[in-house]
């Protein structure tokens, strides 16, 4: 049993070295682990226990590194984790399996690093009377680390039913490791400082940590002999408890390997329960759902803030005065958010037939589609405008910034309502990856994109001009704001009415377009 599982573990480790995509990351991880291990040993060899800073670091660094090691197996992703649930299909006794898995936990990088950590701590205390305490603490700590991480992996694999949850666990573990390594490095760097304030801070932190459960074992060599024995006994008890927990977890997971999805809460319909029970409401809910779940929309939500940032950098590099530039990001963001919907109907792909086959007012379709950008954009503009005005240092420009941004967004949505019915072009399929484009994009796409963007700018040109005058005479700012917002509202309403008619009339042609892609 034990040797079978160990052989499996070795095979898994070996497979990471097979040439291919994983090899690079394997080598990277190995390099990091090598650096950590040798760093620990070197630091231990340089430790001088007569120096209070070094004594403090000798407690702090092992505690920090231990935390990182406990979560380390999670960071590799749960996909290939050797955890009890995987053995559920086989007729195995839980006890030997628990032993085998715990031993397999030592084999591998986290186990090797835990052993290295224990050895380094021993090296630190080698010439000290507390050496025995350090050795025992090291052994118990290795056991604690391995058992804790095994239990964590088993529970995480059990709980992470969805891919999202699994990914979240992996990223949290990786972040924890990164923070732990950074903290350990910082502690080592601080321990070299001769400054007394730093030393006092370090010592007091070490005392706090040493008194806490985290420092139960690693701080044992620093305390009086009697307390050290008590601590070590506590540590042994902890290991025993963890062994019992581990046995229980393994037995439990072998019996009930399946974790059913939690029963759905009263058949809720999500967004659909929050919107009015009208065609436009339902389409809005469906659009919101797609904006939040479909990778094509999500990519845009991620990319949109980048456009203004890139523009800022370009302008700053070109030598424009920086503070007034802070007035630009929001309008640019609003412009592109409104414009993005210009091909929205094609994003439905052939599911568009549901809208075509229903006796649906065209305006309802258009209204539903503009809701997600509106609920995303308008609150964002209102919330961020004061901040950007503050940074820009341009007094009185707040009404203009709000009005122009809202105007650009709404005008963009109005234009999009028309163009997505009139000038649709093939879009990426719903299941397509982020960077997939349909093969027959053609010149039509370019025209459609360019003309809709230019149309928004042209319609907003008067308001933009007013806002520009405001730079020299601030009394124009309120006027520009009102003009911008009014243009936006007007163009949105017009766009929805005209776009609705066009959608109704051209629905079969739109369907034909998506059928051919």
């Amino acid at each position, binding site marked *: 049993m034990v040797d079978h599982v160990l052989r499996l573990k070795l095979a898994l480790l070996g497979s990471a070295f097979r040439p291919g995509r994983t090899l690079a990351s394997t080598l990277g991880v190995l390099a990091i682990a090598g650096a950590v291990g040798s760093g620990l040993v070197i630091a231990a060899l340089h430790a001088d226990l007569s120096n209070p800073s070094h004594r403090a670091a000798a407690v702090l660094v092992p505690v920090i590194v231990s935390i990182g090691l406990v979560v380390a197996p999670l960071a590799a992703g749960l996909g290939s984790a050797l955890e009890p649930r995987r053995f559920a299909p086989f007729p195995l006794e839980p006890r030997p399996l628990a032993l085998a898995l715990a031993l397999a936990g030592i084999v591998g990088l986290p186990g090797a690093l835990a052993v290295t950590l224990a050895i380094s701590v021993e090296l630190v205390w080698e010439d000290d009377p507390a050496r025995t305490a350090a050795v025992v603490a090291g052994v118990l700590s290795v056991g604690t680390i391995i058992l804790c991480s095994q239990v964590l992996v088993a529970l995480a694999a059990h709980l992470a039913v969805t891919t999202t949850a699994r990914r979240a666990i992996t990223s949290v573990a990786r972040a924890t490791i990164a923070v732990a390594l950074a903290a350990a490095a910082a502690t080592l760097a601080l321990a070299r400082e001769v400054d007394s304030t730093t030393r006092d801070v370090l010592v007091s932190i070490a005392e706090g940590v040493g008194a806490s459960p985290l420092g139960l074992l690693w701080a044992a060599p620093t305390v009086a002999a009697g307390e050290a024995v008590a601590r070590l006994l506590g540590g042994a008890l902890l290991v025993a408890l963890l062994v019992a927990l581990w046995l229980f977890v393994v037995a439990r997971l072998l019996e009930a390997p399946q974790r059913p999805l939690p029963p*759905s809460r009263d*058949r809720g*319909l*999500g967004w*659909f329960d929050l919107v009015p*029970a*009208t*065609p436009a*409401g*339902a*389409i809005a*809910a*469906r659009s919101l*759902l*797609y904006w939040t*779940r*479909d990778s094509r929309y999500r990519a845009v939500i991620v990319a949109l803030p980048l456009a203004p940032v890139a523009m800022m950098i370009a302008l700053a590099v070109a030598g424009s005065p920086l503070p007034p530039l802070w007035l630009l990001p929001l309008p640019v963001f609003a412009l592109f958010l409104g414009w993005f919907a210009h091909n929205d109907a094609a994003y*439905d*792909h*052939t*599911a568009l*037939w*549901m*809208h*075509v*086959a*229903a*006796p*649906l*007012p065209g305006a309802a379709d258009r209204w539903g589609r503009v809701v997600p950008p509106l609920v995303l954009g308008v609150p964002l503009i209102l919330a961020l405008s004061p901040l950007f005005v503050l940074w820009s240092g341009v007094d009185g420009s707040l009404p203009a910034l709000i009005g122009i941004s809202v105007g650009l967004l709404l005008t963009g949505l109005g234009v999009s309502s028309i163009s997505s019915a009139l000038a649709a072009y093939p879009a990426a399929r*719903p299941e397509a990856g982020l960077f997939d484009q349909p093969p027959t994009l053609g010149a039509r796409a370019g025209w459609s994109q360019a003309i809709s963007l230019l149309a928004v700018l042209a319609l907003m040109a008067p308001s933009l001009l007013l806002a520009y005058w405001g730079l020299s005479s601030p009394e124009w700012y309120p006027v520009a704001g009102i003009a911008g917002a009014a243009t936006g509202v007007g163009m949105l309403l017009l766009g929805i009415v005209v776009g609705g008619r066009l959608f*109704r009339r051209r629905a*079969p*042609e739109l*369907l*034909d377009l998506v*059928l051919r892609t």
Partner: protein
Amino acid sequence: MGEKALSPSGKAAPSGRTSKPPARPNAKKPAATKKPAAPRKPSAKNAAAARVAERKAAAAAAAAAAAAPREVVLDVHDLRKSYGQAVAVDSISLRVRKGSIFGFVGPNGAGKTTTLSMVSGLLRPDHGTVLIGEADIWKSPTAAKRKLGVLPDRLRLFDRLTGSQLLYYCAMLHGLDRSTARSRTDDLAGALGLDGSLDRPVRDYSVGMVKKISLAAALIHSPSLLVLDEPFESVDPVSTAQAVDLLRRFAAAGGTVVLSSHNMDLVERVCDTVAVIVEGRILASGSLDEVRGTGSLEQRFVELAGGRVAVEGLEWLTTFSV
């Protein structure tokens, strides 16, 4: 064959023809008992008798229809569609009367889907008119589409929605209110065996499940005319039987169904009127008995579709290499 599954109550409650809801031993389908059973629906002692009774009933219905023609629900006149040089649909005219289940059969690429798409307002014809009741689907689409339930073949659904969200969505698009949408969702899910799957995203459904939820989506606004393109493709026999049951009840209550299928057996079992379309033309249409004559529908179909071509030039296929 499937007839047994069609009337599971037959053996358990041989009460002959009845118009009150039959006591169904099968408690898994509570929705099935909610609506009154069709008067025409057989609950005979065995499958063969059921079939005979049904044919008689169908014949009687056809005779009655001949005597006093029921109103025309779908009137297609001179429909044409061509893609470039290729003529997909060449001057098709047909009439479907109220209460009938009309089967549209034809070989692959005969123009079934094209015709049904034009009938349901999804594809603009080059020429011709489609009247749903009084309303021209291309001139007054809203009035026509209100009466129409559509199940297109191979078109996507909004498959990130869960089953119940999708049905609710469809109901909303057709202007239903919230509580109606909810209760009909539950009824249809029960009747079509979708109960356990409504909370899963439609993209996780199998092909047959997608067909079933599409059928539910087509029915949810209680249309008077259903246009179903290959509704039973890759649907399992039990679900097919359930769906057929549903369609029969729908037709008996005055609804009208137009469906296309490759499955001649099924068409023979389900439909009372059929049309055979080959290369964009209707070669035969009328009541089931008129079209099939003395043989089976399949024989007639193969005959109309050009007969069996003697397989030549494939001698190598029979020379097994040693």
